[in-house]
């Protein structure tokens, strides 16, 4: 009875937890005066017509609502109240069947963009100035991406790694025990 329940537990743990449509992934970025929100279940499966709610990060008041398109993309211009308050923007995306996920756009990201000095385009443009302008623009756009890449770097061992290691140890022990029990010595004594 005990062994059977252990086996059942083992089978339950074997069920694929990383199945396709179990979590909405949300990513939002700022470009100029608009924010684009992209939602999907996985790389090839966008969240079709998901409901998007933009809230004030501090007060949680709803600033605006909308619906994503067929490709899971929703674009909106930065609400005036958010700009005056200077608060973070909490973007909540929900799909059917109770899926919901959120993304926080820090105030620094959309405020700095609108306050950044847009390089003035002179009447005559030589290649050196053009290069400099492009570099500045790219810096602005890439800074948040670099920040989030740095934050996502996993330095501490995660729970997954710990469980994996312990699993291997127990599995090795089981394997060794099974192998040892198959030695011809014990088989002979069974007769």
């Amino acid at each position, binding site marked *: 009875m005990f062994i059977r329940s252990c086996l059942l537990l083992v089978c339950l743990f074997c069920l694929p937890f990383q199945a396709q449509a179990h979590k909405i992934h949300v990513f939002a970025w700022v470009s100029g005066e608009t924010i684009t929100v992209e939602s999907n279940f996985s790389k090839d499966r966008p969240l079709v017509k998901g409901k998007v709610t933009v809230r004030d990060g501090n007060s949680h008041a709803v600033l605006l609502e909308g619906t994503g398109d067929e490709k899971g993309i929703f674009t909106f211009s930065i609400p005036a109240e958010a700009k005056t308050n200077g608060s973070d923007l909490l973007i909540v995306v929900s799909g059917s069947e109770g899926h919901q996920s959120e993304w926080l756009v820090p105030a620094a990201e959309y405020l700095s963009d609108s306050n950044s000095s847009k390089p003035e385009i002179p009447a005559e443009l030589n290649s050196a100035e053009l290069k400099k302008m492009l570099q500045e623009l790219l810096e602005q756009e890439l800074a948040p991406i670099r920040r989030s890449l740095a934050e996502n770097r996993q330095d501490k061992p995660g729970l997954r790694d710990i469980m994996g*290691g*312990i699993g291997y*140890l*127990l599995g*090795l022990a089981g394997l060794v025990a099974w192998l040892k029990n198959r030695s011809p010595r014990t088989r002979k004594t069974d007769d």
Partner: protein
Amino acid sequence: MHISEGILNAPVLAGGAALTTIGTAVGLKKLDYDRIMTVSLLSAAFFVASLIHVPVGPGSVHLLLGGLLGLILGWGAFPAIVVALILQSIFFQYGGLVVLGVNGFTIAAPAVLCGLFLKPWLKGSRKQQMIAGFLAGFCAMLLSALFMAGALFFSDQGFLHAAGLVLISHLPVMLIEGVITMFVVSFLIRVEPEILSLNT
């Protein structure tokens, strides 16, 4: 305690690898395969123990539980620790596979030494058991720190300063290990003494 890849020179690495191979072979031979699950559970405990950090000054050191493994498993501590180190290097990137020999010997040899040496005391009075438990934890960590300092020093004389730092910074964790091992061992003796007659 885990020395990273690319720090030690070739002779030290080779020496460590040879010693660890011998130790692991002896350990496997003397292992009581009827108690393999206990061995793997202790290996798992060692595996996780390195995640427990003790802050020391600007950095931190981590627990090893070598003394405990030595007392309970004897020579079996060698394969248990080496396997756990391999998995740690794969899953956590602690240490590495090239430096596995040195790390394995640094941690497992003191564990086995202290375990074998102090095991008879566990059959004594309550006080002797507690002292044996504390000493096992403390001395295993002390010897490990010494071996690690030695490995660093023999690789590059310039590591003398670093080696000294290693010893000093591990003093707090030596004490903590001693205390932990003492409590665990006295608990095991009270609750499940068979586990301690595990080795040959």
